[in-house]
């Protein structure tokens, strides 16, 4: 049993090392930051705003894909984890998909007026916050990525900030602050991890490019 635990620890240490590059943090932070910045696009139709949201995701995906390809993999190497990790990653993906579907369904029901909100009701804010906390909690658990436990409440606070600062900042800057500030904080955390990672794991010298 102790031996199994030791092998488990070895596997877990290797798995977690791939989250020490800060790239995932920057990816998530940039998504949130992008959502905040899109609020600045006040003109145009809903289609233009929607395109703005899609474009806002591009830097996040670019940082993730390029970061993993050109920073992480050349420093840590490539590994395919076993069936248990694959299963847990699949469950994390399912949690993400369920959360997105839940969000769209709630949004659709509100737009279709199936759910009628009282003028002062904060149901969407509470639903959004709960959804984010549950999602990040589930992803932290399945991905074995503990920082997500902290990011959940931080990101969930976005709508709270939006609501609280609406009167003070107006309907554009409250969204910018509400999403932008938590996003920027997480990007900054990711950047600190990235710098530490690059220092701790310099590019290897010698014959490491193609394996043996």
């Amino acid at each position: 049993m102790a031996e199994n635990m030791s092998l488990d620890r070895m596997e877990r240490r290797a798995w977690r090392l791939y989250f020490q590059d800060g790239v995932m943090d920057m990816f998530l932070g940039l998504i949130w930051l992008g959502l905040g910045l899109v609020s600045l696009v006040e003109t145009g139709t809903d289609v233009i705003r929607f395109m703005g949201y899609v474009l806002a995701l591009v830097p996040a995906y670019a940082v993730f894909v390029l970061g993993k390809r050109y920073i992480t993999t050349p420093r840590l190497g490539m590994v395919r984890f076993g069936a248990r990790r694959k299963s847990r990653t699949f469950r994390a993906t399912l949690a993400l998909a369920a959360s997105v579907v839940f969000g769209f369904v709630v949004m659709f029901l509100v737009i279709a007026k199936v759910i009628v909100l009282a003028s002062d009701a904060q149901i969407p804010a509470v639903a959004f916050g709960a959804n984010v906390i549950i999602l990040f909690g589930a992803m932290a658990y399945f991905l074995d990525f503990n920082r997500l436990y902290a990011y959940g409440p931080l990101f969930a606070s976005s709508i709270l900030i939006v609501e609280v600062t609406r009167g003070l900042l107006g309907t554009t800057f409250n969204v910018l602050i509400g999403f932008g500030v938590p996003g920027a904080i997480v990007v900054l955390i990711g950047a600190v991890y990235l710098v530490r990672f690059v220092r701790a794991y310099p590019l290897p010298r010698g014959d490491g490019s193609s394996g043996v």
Partner: protein
Amino acid sequence: MVSRDQTVEDNLQDLASVDKVIHEPARLSIVAHLYVVESADALFLLRQTGLTWGNLSSHMSKLEAAGYIEVDKEFVGRKPHTMLRLTRKGRTAFEDYRSRMKHLFDDIRGGKPT
């Protein structure tokens, strides 16, 4: 009733029959790391084991010669990449090694100092 001398003799025989290919610490570390994943490249093993390229290459050659690891050549994008995995024989050998060592140390722990 098995005598203490008999147990010690059995232990020594167990020790003599331990797989020498796996028993070497660097190779044991390589095999253990490959045991907990599906496959990995040499850089991953270099980072995890702390070996030098030269040592790693030498030990991997021995493990490959023993039929414990196999090399998969594949392309990542347009670049050739080498992934390593434990063979079934390698997995079995590692499990057998763990079992033998555990048995051996359990027996030693059970004995009393003279």
